[in-house]
């Protein structure tokens, strides 16, 4: 269409691709509709909207081609016009441009999806609270299920899966012996070193034996052991169950009429509840031995004197307290691991998340439980 004399373009002088065909609100694009032309068109439309036109026309007759970027600018133009409430249409597109427009028409005609709503502070807090409550309920449910299938049902004559139990005992207990002993030995040495530096000032080196013995019986052996087992087995349990969920193995079990708690959790529960006190007992010995090593080599106290001092200080009550705690820790590690494994969402990546979550939750819960035990011991006796 030739430019008529009484009909001059009023677009800004810099315009290269877009001209205004007045007096109607019509913009004519010349040349390939790509990034540059699209941006210019967008600006021209915005300028045009200041005049409050009743309808906008985009004339694409002189556009031989367009590409995705041009399309993206058209989408933005459509958004602006829709927001302004101005009806618009494209005229005289042909060939490739027409095909392309047809392809992107749904996008031109629909508003952009609303941005995801960000919940407010209290909403987030409330949701987190509910989620925590729900999770606590799930965890308790799993524990109840396990205790039913692990303790009450066998008493009623329904057998345990002994083969699996022995496998789990090996995995959770036997394979952890070396690292538990090594870590506690070193820990005993370090604690003795710390204590000796202080007690030496009073010439009370022999009391290092008391301190190390009591610390390991009540606190350090159960805690160190539990943390090592959480890292080794808690994570492995979460990963194993999460993988089973992802691969629909749990669904398969359920469909065959098995209770996952009975089939998978119970053997691990018994293994941990048996292995943890045993490992903790070893840890107590190892810790004491570590302390004694320092006492003998650095403080020059005889092994016999050290042992006598330790045995006098560490009462059976302390040891039982430590062992009882380790039983609770063991059960917690298994419940937390299984719970996190079973609630996995979203494929392979979910498995990693479940594992991390299990270990973090383990450590937090272990410390909280340890504190409960300490308070209980102080006030109840």
């Amino acid at each position, binding site marked *: 269409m030739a430019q008529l004399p009484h009909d001059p373009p009023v677009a800004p002088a810099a315009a290269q691709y877009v001209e205004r065909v007045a007096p109607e609100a019509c913009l004519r694009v010349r040349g390939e509709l790509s990034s540059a032309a699209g941006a210019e068109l967008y600006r021209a439309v915005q300028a045009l909207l200041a005049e409050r036109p009743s309808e906008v026309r985009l004339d694409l007759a002189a556009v031989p081609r367009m*590409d*995705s*970027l041009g*399309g*993206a*600018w058209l*989408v*933005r133009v459509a*958004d602006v016009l829709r927001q302004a409430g101005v009806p618009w249409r494209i005229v005289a597109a042909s060939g490739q441009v027409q*095909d*392309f427009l*047809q*392809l*992107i028409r*749904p*996008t031109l005609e*629909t508003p*952009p*999806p609303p941005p*995801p709503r960000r919940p407010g502070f209290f909403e987030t807090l409330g949701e987190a609270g509910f989620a925590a409550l729900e999770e606590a309920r799930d965890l308790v449910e799993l524990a109840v299920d396990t205790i039913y299938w692990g303790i009450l049902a066998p008493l009623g004559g329904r057998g345990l899966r002994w083969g699996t139990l022995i496998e789990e005992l090996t995995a959770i207990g036997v394979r952890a012996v070396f690292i538990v002993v090594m870590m506690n030995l070193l820990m005993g040495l370090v604690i003795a070193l710390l204590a000796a530096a202080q007690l030496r000032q009073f010439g009370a080196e022999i009391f290092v034996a008391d301190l190390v013995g009591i610390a390991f019986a009540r606190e350090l052996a159960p805690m160190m052991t539990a943390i090592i087992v959480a890292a080794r087995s808690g994570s492995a349990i979460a990963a194993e169950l999460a993988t089973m969920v992802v691969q629909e193995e749990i669904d398969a079990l359920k469909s065959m009429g098995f209770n996952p708690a009975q089939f998978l959790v119970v053997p691990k529960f018994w293994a941990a509840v048996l292995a943890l006190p045993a490992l903790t007992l070893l840890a107590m010995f190892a810790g004491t031995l570590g302390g004694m090593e320092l006492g003998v080599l650095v403080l020059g106290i005889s092994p016999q004197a050290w042992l006598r001092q330790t045995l006098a200080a560490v009462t059976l009550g302390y040891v039982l307290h430590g062992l009882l705690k380790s039983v609770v820790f063991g059960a917690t590690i298994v419940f937390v691991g299984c719970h996190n494994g079973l609630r996995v*969402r*979203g*494929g*392979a*990546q*979910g498995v990693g998340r479940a594992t991390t979550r299990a270990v973090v939750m383990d450590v937090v819960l272990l410390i909280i439980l340890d504190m409960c035990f300490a308070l209980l011991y102080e006030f109840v006796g």
Partner: protein
Amino acid sequence: MTVLIEVEHLVAHYGERCILDDVSFTVHEGEILVILGASGSGKSTLLKHMVGLLRPTAGTVRYHGQDLIHMEEEERAALLRRVGISFQSGGLFNSLTLADNIALPLREHGGFDEATIQALVRMKLSLVGLADAGHLLPEELSGGMKKRAGVARALALDPEILFFDEPSAGLDPITAAGLDQMILSLRRLLGLTLVVITHELTSIYTLADRALMLDQGKVIFLGSLAEVPRSTHPRVRQFFQRQPPARAVAATS
């Protein structure tokens, strides 16, 4: 017809095992080439060599006459930006929403501003019929939606050629047919060249301009579907003599 890709005497091993043994063919601009073959015949391996994800033991792959194998790393990256790949299992990033999956290559390579990226993402999503699904995570999608989403991401940077590994594997026939139609309309409207791996006869008959069949690392058929009956290779005859679609329809009606 212009040649887009030339594969010449390609030999590939996994360890000692020979997977591709002297494979040669060309891909023409604007055509749909279908790669066929039994499971484990090396189709995915061939595709990965064609896009430079694996290095061949011998042979070359050329795009527009440029040697992909011996190219500088940067040059190859620039070339591969014009290549879209839809992986067999989707290859979507699980931690990103669909919209962010598509926006990722645009943000990294495009140098576009955010509003343009959002507009492009909306366009690509509606191309594959997922206009309303941008906010979903891959885990929330069905199998067919994942494949479509994989295509949308492969299209993000406006490739001139799209590789497609088993678009219809694991999908019901209706969804699979929908996907085939989508591939055809993309070709028509965007002028794409397509290399499609499949072993669905229906898809082959719907899509293929030409077909290439692999067996034990060798090309045992290369040509248009019209040439299939002339092939004397027993594997080719066996493959195409499975229930053809026309007879399947006749049998059920």
